[in-house]
């Protein structure tokens, strides 16, 4: 093969943001190039500057950001182009798709309208010709029934379909380069695999170069020709994808590669006492209805589910978004009204009211997915984690509470001085530790963990998984571990329940489920996850 032509070359790019605390340098003088038709991955964890690099190249930085250096596209520096010249490149020669398929399309215009606009702008076609092109594009990205979909609005489509539309828009003008910024992170695993397949197929057909910005090493391994590993605004390692996986040089790359959670959890003895039991639990939501509005629509989010959680057991509840797994967790804690029998220990709590539940609450705790939204920003960490003590152990003196806060913070591996600081001063992983400390300080018997690692970087995920394991071993805790991430569930749970549309489609010991999934849906789920994470050279 002849020497590939370099079409994009980023030289000494620096990105700075002016903030109230002074200037923050997000990208510190990096060099990256992209050759025609190749697939380049820019890998890093959150805050590594991988997205800002490409945002700067496209002049999409937030208003307080500025970029210096040069971004050369076929001999022109994109950073110094006039806006009208730049707009002839953006969306035409270089286009971009984003992480957030749910919000990246304009909710107020139909799909057809949004597809036609860039086609007309860049190619000067008339409305009828552009419409034909738009239909072609929808067919290209395998949107079923494209004629009808042209008239649809984004909210009428699923996340996966919206991402397909985004891809269609990005490819509308036959670009040289497609920048894909975490294109599958917000999607369910089965959809992730489909979107990645689609991108690979389109690249074969159309021959554009793809720049993957991702934290997901599975994608890199599977799709990339070359890799840049970024950390704290710098490129720490670059080279052939295969070489980097076989023989990583930089310590950070090695750490990233080793960050997949490992290990398994042994099941508790068969005669371990049952902590929480649900029998035929059902949760129904009422949608609409009311005066002259006709019959309300009844949606059964949890449909006839029975579950037995023993002491020192972790049950993984797996399913895609909308499967009812979080609703089930909440219903079992009696945070949502439900039908069926729920027992906590030997007590029937199916009909317990708030007052009756209050003394039990300390024994059944909940940790949420979002470490940013779930801690009150106006309370110190100490106040956040001791708040439960005020309710459940009102007799403690201030000093005793403080002592308990110190113990809880030490237990989750944080500096006790953290209790005098505010949540925003901590990273996502640290915040999740604070949220865990808030649950642990009450010495619970069971904890519902609702996607506790999903918002975290891989390397941090692994630490949180290890922390949760250690706490379980120390206190004989029982976990209900809700997650869509099969690799984390495999490391954490000894028993797995697979949910789909509110029902259990399969359940059993973890190893049995993983080695021999029976239900078609479980198999699809596994296949999708494995497709993304396992190395297959000839894609």
């Amino acid at each position, binding site marked *: 093969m002849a020497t590939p032509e370099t079409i994009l070359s980023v030289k000494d790019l620096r990105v700075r943001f002016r903030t109230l605390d002074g200037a923050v340098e997000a990208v510190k003088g990096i060099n990256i190039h992209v050759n025609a038709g190749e697939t380049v991955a820019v890998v890093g964890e959150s805050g590594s500057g991988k997205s800002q690099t490409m945002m700067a190249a*496209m*002049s*999409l930085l*937030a*208003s307080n950001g500025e970029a210096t250096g040069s971004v050369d596209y076929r001999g022109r520096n994109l950073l110094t182009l006039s*806006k009208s010249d*730049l*707009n*002839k*490149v*953006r*969306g*035409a020669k270089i*286009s*971009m798709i*984003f992480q*957030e398929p749910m*919000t*990246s*399309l*304009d*909710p*107020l*215009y*139909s799909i057809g309208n949004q597809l036609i*606009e*860039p086609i007309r*702008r*860049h190619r000067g076609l008339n409305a009828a010709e552009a419409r034909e092109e738009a239909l072609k594009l929808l067919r290209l990205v395998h949107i079923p029934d494209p004629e009808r979909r042209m008239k649809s*609005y984004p*909210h009428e489509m699923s996340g996966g379909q919206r991402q397909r539309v*985004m891809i269609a*828009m*990005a490819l509308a003008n036959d670009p040289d380069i497609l920048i894909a910024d975490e294109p599958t992170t917000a999607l369910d695993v089965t959809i992730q695999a489909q979107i990645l397949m689609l991108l690979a197929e389109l690249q074969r057909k159309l021959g554009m170069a793809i720049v993957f910005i991702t934290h997901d090493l599975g994608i890199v391994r599977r799709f990339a020709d070359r890799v840049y590993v970024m950390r704290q605004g710098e490129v720490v390692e670059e080279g052939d994808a295969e070489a980097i996986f076989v023989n990583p040089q930089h310590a950070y790359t090695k750490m990233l590669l080793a960050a997949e959670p490992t290990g398994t959890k042994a099941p508790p003895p068969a005669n371990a006492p049952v902590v929480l039991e649900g029998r035929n639990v059902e949760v129904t939501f009422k949608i609409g209805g009311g*005066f*002259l*509005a006709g019959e309300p629509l009844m949606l059964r989010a949890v449909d006839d589910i029975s579950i037995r959680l023993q002491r020192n057991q972790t049950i993984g509840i797996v399913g895609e978004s909308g499967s009812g797994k979080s609703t089930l967790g909440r219903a079992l804690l009696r945070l949502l009204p439900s039908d069926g029998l729920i027992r906590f220990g030997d007590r029937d709590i199916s009909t317990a009211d708030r007052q009756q539940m209050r003394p039990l609450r300390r024994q059944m705790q909940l940790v949420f997915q979002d470490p940013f939204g779930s801690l009150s920003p106006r309370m110190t960490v100490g106040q956040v984690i001791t708040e439960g003590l005020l309710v459940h152990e009102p007799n403690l003196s201030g000093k005793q509470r403080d002592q308990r806060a110190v113990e809880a913070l030490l237990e989750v591996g944080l500096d006790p001085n953290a209790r005098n600081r505010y949540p925003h001063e901590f990273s996502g992983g640290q915040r999740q530790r604070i949220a865990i400390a808030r649950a642990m300080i009450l010495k619970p018997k069971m904890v519902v963990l609702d996607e506790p690692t999903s918002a975290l970087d891989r390397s941090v995920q692994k630490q949180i998984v290890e922390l949760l394991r250690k706490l379980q071993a120390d206190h004989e805790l029982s976990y209900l571990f809700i997650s869509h991430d099969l690799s984390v569930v495999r490391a954490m749970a000894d028993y797995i329940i697979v949910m789909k549309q509110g029902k259990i489609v399969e359940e059993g010991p973890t190893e049995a489920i993983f080695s021999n999934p029976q239900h078609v849906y479980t198999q699809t789920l596994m296949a999708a996850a494995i497709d993304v994470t396992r190395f297959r050279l000839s894609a």
Partner: protein
Amino acid sequence: MLRYVFRRLLTAIPTLFVIVTMAFFLMRVAPGGPFNQERGLSPEIKANLEAQFGLNDPLWLQYVHYLGNLLRGNFGPSYNMPDFTVTELFAKGLPISVQLGASALILALLLGSVLGTIAALNQNKLGDYTVIALATAGSTIPTFVIAPVIQLLFGLTWKLLPIGGWGDGAFINKVGPVLTLALPQIAIVARLMRGSMIESLRSHHIRTARALGLSDWSVVVKHALRGAILPIVSFTGPAAAALLTGSVIVETIFSIPGVGRYFVDAALNRDYTLVMGTVVVIAIFTIIFNLIVDVMYAVVDPRVRYD
């Protein structure tokens, strides 16, 4: 959609009924009556008057009579302006108030939106600070200060506008009162628009539009503005109901024969029928404009569906 509008109009009936009932009895709880303040009214004459207007009947009977009349579209006679029925007073004054209010509202929406958009596009720069300063001034300076200042400057000093009066609806007579009515609303709209426009400009789909190389005009007007307009739409409902039913201060200062003055005058004089008439009119305006707002919402935002 039609079904939804029909349903909303049906629910308006019990709403109106509750409002009328509450207003009717609250009015009677207040001490005094329509003929208490007439000077030198001998007890016999007062008794005669009250008998003539049925004010001696038991309260429930008066209520039933009032409701009966109301259902036939009859608001009854005004007690303090005995030459007119309430209906006649509204027929004369309401068109005037509606004209002024509608002009002020349209002016406020147009100017306020433009100013707010300019501010948002220049966030934390001079243009933004100027608009914010104007908006703060506009919403803090009370109408009873603005109106005389307009009269003084435009009327007396520069002699550009008449100082007051309706002049049979001549354009020049409307300028002062419309400006006075509009200024605070412009300020509110500008601030609302600035906030929602800033948010809209930061949204992901605007980033998409930019990444597609669309023109600034399309990014700002077609994509950002349409999303940002929704808070303005919801503001317009109550604002329209308030503006179109007249303003006491503006109509008094500019001597405009609208309906804005009735509410206060009537309440002070215990002119029961006129108060009730005003309450019903304001309630109907509020209900109708809120309905229009909700329909507009569905027009602007395809995610809003009523069925």
